[in-house]
C-alpha cells in the first residue's frame, strides 16, 4: 500500500483519477490486484474504488450506504442536477466557438486566448457566454469577457473537469471526469425515459 500513498490521498480527497490527471496512478488503478488491495485498505473508511462504464475514470464511493452517506449523496446529487445545464451549455459553447466537429472529450486542449478571441467578435456567442457566466454554477459578477472566461475555466478546474498543466499558462486539458458527466446524463436519460436521442436517425445509418 505504501507505494500508492499519494494516489490514495488524492482519491480520498475526492479526486477523479484518469489518464490525463494522473497517468501513472491510472495505470496502477487499472490493475485488478491493486484495486483489490486498495479496496481492502479502504474498507474501514467505508470507501471503495469504482469507475465509470468505460473504465476511463476512477473515484471513491461509499461501501455501505448509511444515513450520513445517503444525506451526503442526496445533497451532492442535487448539486449535480443543478450543474447539468450550465455544464452542457459550456460544452456546446466551446464546441461551437472553436469550430470543432465533435464534442469535447478527455485529452482535448483548450486555449483560453483562442476562446476569448473568437467570442469577442461574435455577438451571439458573447451573449451566450454572458448568460452562462452569470449562472449560479459559475456565478460571475463581472461584465468583462476576459474575467468571465477566466472564472468559468477556473471553476471547471476546481470541479475537476479541466486540468491546467502550468498555472501561469492559460491553456487547459479536458479530464476524464467529463466522461463521468456524460455517463451520468445518459443514466438519467435512460432511467427517466427522457425523450433525448443520441443516435442518428435510422435512415441516416442505412
Amino acid at each position: 500500500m505504501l507505494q500508492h500513498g499519494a494516489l490514495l490521498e488524492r482519491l480520498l480527497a475526492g479526486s477523479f483519477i484518469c489518464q490525463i490527471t494522473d497517468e501513472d496512478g491510472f495505470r496502477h488503478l487499472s490493475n485488478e490486484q491493486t484495486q483489490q488491495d486498495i479496496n481492502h485498505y479502504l474498507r474501514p473508511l467505508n470507501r471503495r474504488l469504482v469507475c465509470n462504464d468505460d473504465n476511463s475514470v476512477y473515484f471513491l464511493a461509499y461501501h455501505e450506504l448509511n444515513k450520513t452517506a445517503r444525506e451526503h449523496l442526496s445533497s451532492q446529487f442535487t448539486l449535480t442536477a443543478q450543474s447539468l445545464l450550465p455544464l452542457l451549455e459550456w460544452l456546446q459553447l466551446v464546441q461551437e466557438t472553436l469550430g470543432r466537429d465533435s464534442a469535447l472529450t478527455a485529452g482535448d486542449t483548450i486555449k483560453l486566448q483562442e476562446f476569448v478571441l473568437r467570442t469577442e467578435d461574435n455577438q451571439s456567442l458573447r451573449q451566450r457566454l454572458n448568460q452562462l457566466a452569470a449562472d449560479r454554477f459559475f456565478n460571475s459578477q463581472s461584465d468583462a469577457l476576459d474575467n468571465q472566461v477566466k472564472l468559468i475555466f477556473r471553476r471547471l478546474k476546481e470541479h475537476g473537469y479541466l486540468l491546467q498543466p502550468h498555472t501561469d499558462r492559460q491553456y487547459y486539458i479536458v479530464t476524464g471526469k467529463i466522461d463521468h458527466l456524460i455517463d451520468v446524463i445518459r443514466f438519467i436519460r435512460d432511467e427517466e425515459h427522457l425523450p433525448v436521442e443520441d443516435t442518428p436517425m435510422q435512415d441516416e445509418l442505412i
Partner: protein
Amino acid sequence: MAAFDSKTGSNLFSIGSERLALLGKHHKALMQGYLDGFVDETAFSDIALKKLINARILWRPDEQQPLALRPLVSELIASMVADENRRQINADVAEKLEQIRNRVQAYRDSQFKGDYSVAELQLQRLTEHVHDLSGQFEEAIDSLWHRLNSDFGFVSSLDDKIRENERAQKQLRRLLDGLDLLDFTELIELAEGNSHLRKLLVSQLQSQLSSHHSSLLEVQKRLIELLAKFRQQQSRSMLIANMAAFLRQHPKYHPADYANRSEVPNLLNQAVAIVPQAAIALDRSSERQLLAELVLSLPRSVNSSLPDQHSASFAAPFVDDAVAARQQALQLDVENFYLRVIDHGSSLSALDYLAQQQLAWDGEIWLYQIIAEYQALPVDEKQMFVMLRDEAPASAMNSLLLIQDISISLQAA
C-alpha cells in the same frame, strides 16, 4: 515484324512525349481546372485547346458543359498529390488476372515457335502486368492509410467522416475480395516448367500479395475502430445537444432522488472527501534532529532593531547583582509593612511607616512598590485589605490626581 514494332514504337514515343509535354506546358491552367472541376477555355489558344482535346487530356462531357479534365487525368493528379477527396481505388482484379493469363499464353506460344525477341517482349509486358497488379494494391493501401492517419481530416463534419469511413470499408472489402480471386495453384500451373515465370508469378507475387493482405486486414481493423470512435463522438454530441435542449425546455425538471434508492448506482455514489491531516509528534527521538531542523528553517519574524534609548532605562532588566539585592530588600520591607497592618488592625499610612521605621527608600518608590504588591495579591487576599489613596489635583488648572500617601487597613470582616 520487328521492324514494324520499332516503327509503331517510335511513333508511339513521339506522340506520347509530345502529349506529356502538353501537360507540362499548360500545367497551371490544367491544375486550376482540376480544382474548379472545369477548364477556363479563355486561358488557352484555339490550337492549344484542339491539341489538348486530341491528346485526350480535356473533353466536353456534354454539349452544354464546359471543358473538363478527362477522368484519367484527374485521377493521375489525385494520386500524385494524395488528394483523398478525388483519389480512386481500383479494386478490379479479374481484368488484370485475365490479362496475365493471356500474356502467359502468348509468351509460351512465341517461345514454342522459337520467336525469342517476341517472347522477350511478351515477358516484359507480363512483368508490367504483374507489377501493375501489385502496385494497384499498394496504391489502394497507401490511400487508405493516408485517410486513416489524417482521421479523415479532408472532410470537415463528423457525418462526412463517418460516410467516408464507410466508403473506405467498402473499398477495402472489394480489395479483399479481389485478393481472394487470385488462386495460387492456378498461377503455379501457369508458371510450370519456366523459372522466369515461376519467379515472377509465384515467389514474387505471392510474397507481395500476402504482405498486402495483412496490411489490408490491419487497415480494416483500424477503420472499424475509428468508425466506432466517430459513432461515439457523434452520439456524445447529440446527447449533449438534446439534453441541453430538454433541460432548457423544462426548467423545473428534477431527476429522481437516486441517493435514497435501495441500490445507488456507482456513478452517483461519490464519497465525501477525507483529507488526512497530521501534526508534529515528539515521541520518536530519531526524528528530533529533523524536527529541530524544521523549526530552525521556519521563517522568523524580523524584529526591526531600534537604536538604544536611554530614556527607557527603567525597563532595563535587573542584571546587576547589587540592584537585584536592593529590589529584594525593598520587597521584604513592603511585606513587613503589610504584616504590621495585619498586626495593627487599623489604618496605617505608608509614609508614616517609612518615617517611623527610618527606612532609606525614596517615598515615591516606596508607594509604588506598595501599590504593586497590593495589585499582585491573589483576589481573596486582596479583599482582606482596603487601600485608601490620599490624592490631590496637580494644580487648579490640571485635574490630574497625584498620590500623596497611601493608607492600608484590614477589611472589617
